[in-house]
């Protein structure tokens, strides 16, 4: 309630009370008088009316002034005293009370200040002791953090539901680059790819990596653990949208009860190695082909000349000409190509050995389309092994079956497995027309896209990594039964042992670096409003605009945002973007934000920036100072961009009013001063967002003191405050 209202309520209550007493006394007094005395009293009252009247007026005035004085010098200062003492007691111990009021209140304030000083001194001593004890731990922690940061492999640690608890720089580099300022082309590039996510604490890893891939790896690990295998890691290849190939090793993290507590993903970029291997391979193939053709010609000619020594001279000349030109070409080949041969790396697309029969059976169980197919294992050693990247090869075959069905109009009804010689053949058989080589070649060039998942490599590239090919074959002489045959090399025995990765078990006491305690954090609760303020993920943001009236065409020219996860501001996960407003920036707004027309020229438009910001803020609570204004700005663009911000919103201005109702001033500067937050760059979108974030984090414990714990409670309290009624 506002101070003024309180005052009037108080004044009316006092007046009513006093009037009641006076009136009751008067009534009692009148009852004691006989009619004669009563007559005399009225007489006296009539003659002395002005005396009585002025006495009444003076008394009321004196009463009113006293009341006001009492309120101003006792009630208000005491309320402020409570608020400020609470600030000292919680978020800002160095805050000192400076209030105007009665002598007693001032003395009380001084006493509280001196208590604060003593407390501060005591705390300082304590802090120093703790600090020195912590320094040792810190050093050890830093070593670990440095090792993580400098790992040449990218590392992601996730909890059971796939939230990222820790990542290192290399993981960020290979997966994305969130915190760099967004460039025009990058925005362009990411437009319309809603599924493409960010790497960040507490964000879902499944926005970066197809959930199927990870699930497959986890299943593989579970199987290995069940079989009590020595190595429990699982590998897969992740192809990014930029067609980078990452070899991903998945390792489980187990808690003390040996239950899944999360998993580690280690990324190695093998694009370069694979490219080199491919180059070498194609070079070798080309080389072999040229050599063979040339030698074939020479050999054939020489044979003929030996066999028919008496051939005509013209023919002999032709033949000698061929030998000469072919040997010439051969020497040139050797001179140029062979000298350029480098030592290329061996292909390192990780393939795992599997029994061919097992592969067919899992393929069958994982593809609904062929689940009722007949599998026929003919002339095949049951121990016959092949090397596969299970996930991608299954996808490739599902893709082929899909193509057959949709484009060739045939449905396979039988799989046959044979293994003549060094190749394993998997035949997918149907009754109907044979597929032409040309059609097959077209399918080969396409990226593997299925209704549910896709893989950014072409069928041909993927098969090439397996040294496999798909080829048409006609079954019977009538030509009615046809099949596509997958050729894949067979491996005879078990290859050299895989690198052994033993299972990691977490110790009983959790290591105290980063956010491992997130393993047991709330967040499983579906209702976001019911979640505790300290457990939510926030995007704190601020906008700079050309003016203060969005309805008359003022536009956003800068957006700054920072993420808060688990009560920490993440300075590596920010947005700081200038926006081209497509209008002139009025000079009177320039003096606030210092942004000129020249600075925003050629920057991304609001549509692109909002699309980026929308994805950045997905699944978080938005926080801003005077959020009503910023939200209105975003809302104005809703129709044009189709981007709607449905995130819950908290406003630090409302929250300040909730916390300190007796203070009139709730602008960001005043709050910062109250909370002891240092302002570095005021009226800079990111600077303000960071300051707002710091203020917000200090507010959470104060809100808790007031019995406000959940998001819902904070929203309800905000709504009640006076400022919430202000509309933009």
């Amino acid at each position, binding site marked *: 309630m506002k101070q003024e209202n309180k005052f009037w309520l108080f004044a009316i209550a006092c007046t009513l009370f006093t009037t009641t007493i006076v009136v009751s006394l008067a009534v009692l007094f009148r009852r004691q008088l006989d009619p004669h005395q009563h007559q005399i009293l009225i007489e006296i009252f009539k003659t002395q009316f002005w005396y009585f009247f002025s006495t009444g007026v003076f008394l009321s005035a004196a009463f009113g002034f006293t009341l006001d004085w009492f309120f101003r010098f006792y009630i208000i200062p005491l309320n402020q005293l409570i608020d400020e003492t609470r600030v000292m007691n919680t978020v800002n111990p160095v805050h000192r009370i400076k209030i105007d009021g009665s002598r007693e209140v001032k003395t009380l304030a001084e006493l509280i200040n001196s208590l604060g000083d003593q407390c501060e001194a005591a705390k300082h001593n304590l802090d120093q002791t703790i600090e020195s004890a912590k320094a040792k731990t810190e050093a050890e922690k830093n070593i670990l953090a440095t090792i993580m940061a400098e790992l040449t492999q990218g590392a992601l640690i996730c909890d059971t539901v796939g939230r990222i608890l820790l990542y290192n720089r290399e993981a960020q580099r290979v997966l994305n680059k969130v915190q760099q300022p967004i460039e025009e082309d990058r925005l362009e590039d990411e437009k319309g790819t809603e599924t493409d996510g960010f790497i960040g604490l507490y964000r879902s890893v499944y926005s970066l990596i197809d959930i199927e891939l990870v699930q497959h790896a986890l299943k593989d690990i579970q199987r290995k653990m069940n079989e009590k295998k020595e190595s429990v890691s699982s590998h897969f290849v992740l192809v990014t949208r930029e067609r980078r190939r990452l070899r991903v090793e998945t390792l489980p993290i187990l808690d003390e009860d040996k239950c899944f507590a999360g998993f580690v993903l280690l990324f190695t970029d093998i694009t370069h190695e694979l490219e080199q291997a491919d180059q070498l391979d194609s070079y070798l193939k080309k080389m072999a082909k*040229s050599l*063979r053709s040339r030698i074939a*010609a020479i*050999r*054939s000619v020489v044979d003929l000349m030996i066999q028919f020594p008496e051939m005509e001279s013209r023919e002999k000349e032709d033949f000698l000409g061929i030998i000469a030109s072919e040997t010439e070409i051969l020497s040139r080949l050797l001179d140029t190509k062979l000298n350029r041969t480098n030592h290329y790396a061996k292909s390192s697309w990780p393939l795992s050995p599997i029994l061919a029969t097992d592969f067919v059976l899992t393929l069958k169980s994982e593809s609904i389309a062929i689940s009722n197919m007949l599998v026929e294992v003919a002339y095949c050693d049951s121990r016959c092994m092949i090397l596969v990247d299970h996930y991608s090869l299954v996808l490739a075959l599902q893709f082929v079956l899909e193509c057959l069905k949709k484009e060739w109009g045939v449905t396979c009804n039988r799989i046959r497995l044979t293994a003549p010689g060094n190749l394993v053949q998997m035949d997918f058989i149907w009754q109907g027309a044979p597929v032409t080589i*040309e059609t097959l070649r077209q399918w080969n060039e396409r990226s593997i896209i299925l209704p549910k998942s896709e893989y950014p490599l072409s069928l041909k590239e993927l098969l090439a990594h397996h040294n496999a090919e798909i*080829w*048409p074959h006609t079954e019977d002489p009538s030509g009615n039964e046809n099949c596509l045959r997958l050729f894949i090399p067979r491996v005879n025995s078990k290859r050299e042992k895989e690198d052994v990765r033993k299972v990691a078990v977490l110790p009983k006491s959790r290591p105290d670096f980063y956010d491992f305690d997130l393993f047991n954090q709330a967040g499983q609760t579906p209702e976001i409003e019911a979640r505790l303020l300290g457990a939510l993920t926030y995007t704190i943001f601020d906008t700079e605009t050309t003016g203060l009236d969005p309805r008359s065409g003022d536009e956003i020219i800068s957006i700054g945002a920072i993420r808060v996860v688990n009560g920490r501001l993440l300075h590596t996960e920010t947005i700081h973007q200038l926006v081209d407003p497509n209008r002139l920036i009025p000079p009177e707004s320039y003096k606030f934000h210092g942004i000129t027309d020249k600075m925003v020229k050629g920057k991304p438009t609001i549509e692109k920036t909002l699309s980026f910001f929308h994805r950045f803020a997905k699944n978080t609570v938005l926080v801003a100072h005077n959020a009503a204004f910023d939200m209105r700005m975003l809302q104005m663009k809703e129709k044009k961009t189709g981007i709607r911000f449905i995130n819950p919103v908290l406003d630090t201005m409302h929250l300040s009013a909730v916390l300190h109702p007796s203070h009139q001033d709730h602008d960001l500067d005043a709050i910062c001063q109250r909370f002891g937050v240092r302002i570095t760059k005021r009226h800079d979108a990111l600077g303000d967002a960071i300051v707002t974030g710091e203020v917000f984090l200090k507010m959470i414990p104060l809100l808790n003191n007031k019995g406000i714990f959940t998001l819902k409670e904070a929203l309800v309290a905000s709504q009640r405050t006076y400022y919430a009624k202000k509309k933009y």
Partner: protein
Amino acid sequence: MVKKILIVDDEPSITVPLTFLMEQNHFKVMVVHTGEDALNAIDHFQPDLVLLDVMLPTIDGFQVCQNLKSNPKCTTTKVIFLSAMTRDIDLAKGNTLGADAYITKPFSNADVVKQIIDLLF
């Protein structure tokens, strides 16, 4: 009756000596250098046997073979691949398409002649 042989290869250094070899062995020879020409020649020349290179511009040897084997007029026509592609998979691909033999380059003249005689007589 003289048997007819169609030689399909885009490199004259292969076709010239092969033609000579076939003529010396009393075969009637026709030479073409592309897949399209090969398909035409199969229709008009009606060869008893085709010596087929795999790597040809536009329509390759595999396609020619698939086409030939599905042509009802050519049920008795034999196909021998002559190819510089020598992986197991390449041989398997040829055989899968119904080729009668797959000879890898470089080859010996005697082997080629022997294969042809085995297939035709």
